[in-house]
């Protein structure tokens, strides 16, 4: 058999198998029922040579041929992990309406206790929400109100300002400006309508757990555009994994 063909079959097999193949397994591929093909069978030496040549050919490529415990396999070079890894990157979840409202109330009315937040929102605030906000380091307990039960008072953090690219809370719109948010940021009109639909009972309905995703709100360019979105990464959740095959 033409050596180039042997090499191509070996290459094809390694790439089709999606697992390491031993020299024996590769050799077995050439056991064809057809007698003529059988006589034309490559030697083990040729197969070995093919593996060696492939390894060299892959030298400057995105892939490499590696011998591992159970045989030979083609793998993507580790150098490109940063890019390839994005294939497995999950889409970030979205925060619930309840969480957004809670965060906004804390920002504007801090220091404030949970009970006071609930009073403004008109519905209960789950501990999940405050915990998530604290884990995100946007909110912290700044003290305790001196009333029975000594409830914690929440305030926003430096990280909160950084995330939204604010020098101080003064840069947030005033309530008067908020009231006219539509005219203030005309490009927000559409969102405004969408949002209104969600207020009231529906906002309450999304209450349970901030992990649940809120309706996709694609924001147009605007104030928040400047926020350094993607940089915030919780280092503790980083783990090394061998990705499963994408479905």
């Amino acid at each position: 058999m033409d050596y180039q063909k042997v090499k191509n079959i070996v290459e094809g097999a390694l790439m089709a198998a999606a697992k390491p193949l031993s020299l024996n397994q590769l050799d077995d591929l050439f056991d064809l029922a057809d007698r003529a093909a059988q006589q034309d069978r490559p030697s083990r030496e040729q197969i070995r040579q093919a593996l060696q040549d492939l390894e060299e050919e892959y030298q400057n490529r995105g892939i490499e041929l590696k011998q591992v415990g159970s045989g030979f396999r083609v793998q993507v070079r580790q150098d490109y992990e940063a890019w390839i890894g994005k294939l497995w990157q999950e889409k970030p979840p979205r925060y619930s309406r309840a969480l957004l409202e809670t965060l906004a109330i804390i920002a504007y009315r801090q220091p404030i206790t949970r009970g006071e937040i609930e009073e403004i929102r008109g519905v209960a605030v789950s501990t999940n929400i405050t915990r998530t906000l604290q884990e995100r380091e946007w909110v912290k307990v700044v003290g305790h109100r001196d009333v029975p039960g000594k409830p914690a008072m929440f305030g926003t953090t430096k990280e909160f300002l950084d995330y939204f690219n604010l020098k101080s809370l003064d840069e947030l719109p005033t309530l008067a400006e908020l009231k006219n948010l539509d005219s203030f940021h005309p490009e927000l009109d559409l969102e405004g309508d969408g949002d209104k639909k969600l207020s009231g009972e529906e906002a309450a309905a999304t209450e349970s757990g901030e992990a649940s995703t809120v309706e996709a709100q694609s924001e147009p360019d605007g104030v928040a555009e400047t926020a350094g979105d993607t940089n915030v990464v919780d280092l503790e959740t980083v783990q090394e994994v061998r990705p499963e095959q994408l479905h």
Partner: protein
Amino acid sequence: MNEIAETPLPAAQEEMPFALVQGEPLTMVPKDLYIPPDALEVILEAFAGPLDLLLYLIKRQNLDILDIPIADITRQYMDYINMMEILKLELAAEYLVMAAMLAEIKSRMLLPRPTSDTDEDDPRAELVRRLQEYERFRQAAEDIDSLPRMERDLHQASAEPPLIEQEKPLPDLKLQELLLAFRDVLRRAEMFSHHHIQREPLSVRERMSIVLSSLKPNVFVPFTSFFKVEEGRMGVVVTFLAILELIKEGMLDVVQSEPFAPIHIKAAGSSAEKGDDDEGAEPEPQGQD
């Protein structure tokens, strides 16, 4: 004859159940209905419907689909149907509907037709149309079946991915989303009418948080330590307002041992050993909505 022998079968042929009977005695008996019963069963079950059976009968005799001898075909069709009934094969209702249609065409063919013959007047026209329409898709099915396809002819090439450092991404949040959420809260709570909230500078609120969080339980902090020269006059004013507001809301205790002595501040009620945790003493919120 050599050429005939070499006529290649369509590639998809072996996919078809018909292949099962090829080379069987059945194929040796041309244009005759003698077929070994078990082979017949295989054939009959292989028909994908009455149109398929009709096409089989037509092609078997190499007839032109546009000029079907209806009487013959109808007779043969009925023979098959009877056979299927004898063999107690499950006979789809469509086979009988077709039988009725054939009988009707046959009887109309016997009537004299005007000489200015057109398609529409030919009683077979509708049948021919349907047979052709079906046939082209039967052919298309074979064509699709013979396309190179994954698993059978082609295989996805893959290589082991590198070790991936997977980060669990945190949700993104746009400032607008936050502001819009707050606006809706305010609308709901009808807070826009409360002017005192509107006037309150946010920097004071922010400073209140900063002052509070810099206090430790049971530790008095000198009043002056909250004021930083580098913040300038505005900074001093903001801090002062923040502390006044905190005192007003009962969140700070202020102590001065004697007039003009240094003023000290501590968190109100912080004599209670209280962690930084918001859980615990606070009652869980009742009923989520």
